[in-house]
């Protein structure tokens, strides 16, 4: 078994601690080490992705204890994919944070960033339900720190709300896990997947409660209506790069929903049946609608981006809630796309906000620096987010729609109508920000250095979208294989080498 599986967790942890210990007061050193670590993480993630593509799932038995008694890490295509996505995103965001000097506007940005990466990687790689909780907490508390990075009234107040709401979520997570353990007596995900199928009938009801609560936890993370309320204020008030990093945080909810909803308690499970699907689909549709309406109704660019994120989660969860291989594959593709697109949008929003007195959309301001360039970037990310051709968003939507042709009447019309609303919202916002600006008094916005790095980062994310579009074919082929492996987790379970139950 290769120790590399745990590297994405240990490396950031060590670097984060080292930054704290040796270079607490030297920003340059912090930048160098933190960036180096993130790049290394990317390389490792790439290697893991490669390995996961070639080989069946690999299990890392922590403490050399056999599953399900110890904690295991599992490297399968899905976890590898998510870690890779995180790493790539992290590189871009870190470049941006450095380029825009965001990391200098408060203490401990890079240490927190590294721990954040540790938490996210840990959450993706773990094969243990309770350990998933622990790493949720790691990434959450790091995100609290990053969210209030730099301080300020609104940010702190929004931060309090963010923390408070997530504490409720964490409590729910623990209630769910405790119930699961009390019913099944296990915490190992593979073991759970096995036991869920052979649960005595009398325990169904309680297990269903546990399943619902668990999925609601992921719904909180994934900002699924009606648990989305925490997101807009948080994302709109978080520092730009942090909000961009949060683009992957919501996806953790989606990831977990897939991991458990598809692999552990698929609709074929006797105890739970279609319970989850029945609840998730309407919620997802509501989410998409609320998000789209929010994009049109957003009062600031930050909130617009936030609601776009909600809408994207709606689409992703619509696909997930179909629980078919095709839909899961579409969901995975869409998740990757919307992560990059959302992040890009937040970075661009930050570029704009940085150059304007405010980012309100109901009043035009004088043209800003590099207006043309930023307008172009905005248009590109708007196209991607709205799911217009030619960028990957369009394919994502087509894939989702194609996979859900059974519910065509409902799902298609919702997806298409919301797309129109989103397009409208972006068109209005864009013309206010970049066209109307010329109508307003031709004053100069606050002066600004070019910030080459910041732009490079943003371009990088958009380039990722282009790549996702151009190589849609092979990417989708890969996603389909992954989806199949999730819908038939035999290999995943086998890798855990569970003891034979008598």
């Amino acid at each position: 078994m290769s120790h590399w599986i745990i590297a994405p967790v240990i490396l950031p942890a060590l670097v984060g601690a080292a930054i704290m210990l040796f270079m607490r007061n030297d920003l340059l050193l912090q930048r160098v080490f933190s960036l180096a670590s993130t790049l290394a993480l990317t390389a490792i993630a790439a290697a893991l992705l490669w390995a996961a593509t070639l080989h069946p799932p690999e299990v890392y038995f922590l403490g050399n204890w056999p599953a399900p008694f110890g904690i295991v890490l599992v490297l399968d295509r899905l976890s590898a994919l998510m870690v890779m996505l995180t790493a790539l995103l992290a590189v871009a965001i870190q470049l941006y944070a450095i380029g825009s000097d965001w990391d200098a506007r408060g203490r401990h940005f890079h240490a927190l960033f590294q721990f954040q990466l540790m938490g996210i990687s840990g959450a993706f790689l773990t094969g243990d339900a309770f350990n998933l909780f622990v790493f949720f907490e790691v990434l959450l508390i790091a995100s609290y720190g990053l969210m209030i990075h730099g301080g300020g009234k609104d940010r702190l107040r929004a931060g309090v709300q963010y923390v408070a709401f997530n504490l409720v979520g964490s409590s729910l997570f623990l209630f769910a896990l405790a119930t699961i353990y009390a019913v099944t007596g296990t915490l190992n995900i593979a073991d759970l997947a096995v036991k869920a199928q052979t649960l005595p009938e009398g325990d169904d009801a309680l297990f269903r409660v546990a399943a619902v609560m668990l999925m609601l936890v992921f719904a909180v993370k994934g900002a699924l209506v009606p648990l989305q309320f925490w997101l807009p204020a948080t994302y709109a008030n978080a520092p730009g790069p942090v909000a961009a990093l949060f683009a992957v945080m919501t996806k953790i909810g989606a990831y977990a929903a897939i991991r458990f909803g598809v692999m552990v308690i698929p609709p074929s499970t006797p105890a739970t049946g279609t319970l989850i699907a029945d609840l998730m689909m309407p919620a997802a549709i509501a989410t998409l609608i609320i998000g789209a309406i929010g994009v049109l109704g957003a009062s600031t660019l930050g909130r617009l981006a936030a609601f776009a994120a909600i809408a994207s989660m709606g689409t992703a969860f619509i696909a997930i809630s179909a629980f078919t291989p095709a839909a899961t594959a579409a969901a995975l593709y869409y998740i990757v796309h919307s992560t990059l697109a959302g992040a890009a949008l937040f970075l661009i929003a930050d570029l704009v906000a940085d150059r304007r007195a405010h980012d309100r959309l109901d009043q035009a301001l004088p043209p800003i620096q590099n207006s043309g360039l930023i307008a172009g970037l905005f248009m590109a990310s708007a196209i991607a987010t709205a799911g217009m051709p030619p960028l990957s968003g369009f394919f994502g939507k087509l894939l989702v729609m194609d996979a859900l042709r059974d519910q065509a009447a409902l799902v298609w019309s919702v997806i298409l109508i919301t797309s129109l609303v989103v397009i409208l919202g972006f068109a209005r916002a864009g013309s206010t920000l970049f066209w109307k600006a010329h109508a307003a008094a031709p004053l100069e916005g606050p002066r600004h250095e070019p910030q080459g790095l910041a732009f490079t980062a943003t371009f990088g994310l958009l380039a990722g979208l282009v790549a996702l579009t151009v190589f849609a074919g092979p990417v989708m082929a890969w996603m389909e294989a992954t989806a199949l492996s999730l819908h038939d987790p035999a290999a995943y379970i086998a890798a855990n080498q569970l003891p034979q139950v008598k």
Partner: protein
Amino acid sequence: MELLVASALGLLTSAGVYLMLRQRTFPVIVGLTLLSYAVNVFIFTAGRLTVNLPPIIDKYANGYTDPLPQALVLTAIVISFGMTAVLVMMALGAYLEAGHDKVDMNDTDETPKGGAK
């Protein structure tokens, strides 16, 4: 006994939730603290209630209670402690920045009361 524990658990949860729904940060934090106590007890009860069977290996022991939930509770306690600490600090910061300690952001800031002027 189980009924007593369950009812106490319910009371804790209710009190926690009620305080969480107040409009000032301080009671909200206290409410969250109570909720986390409730959670810890809940996890603990997932190992069922036993008396005088501590999970300490001992040749005279006549059985052990389920130790795993206890370990989970310990982890949960520690984590919620960290979270609470951060939240307390953020609430203080928000109060100092805003001049009031309302949790809801749907109202215009009032003039600071109490200590901070």
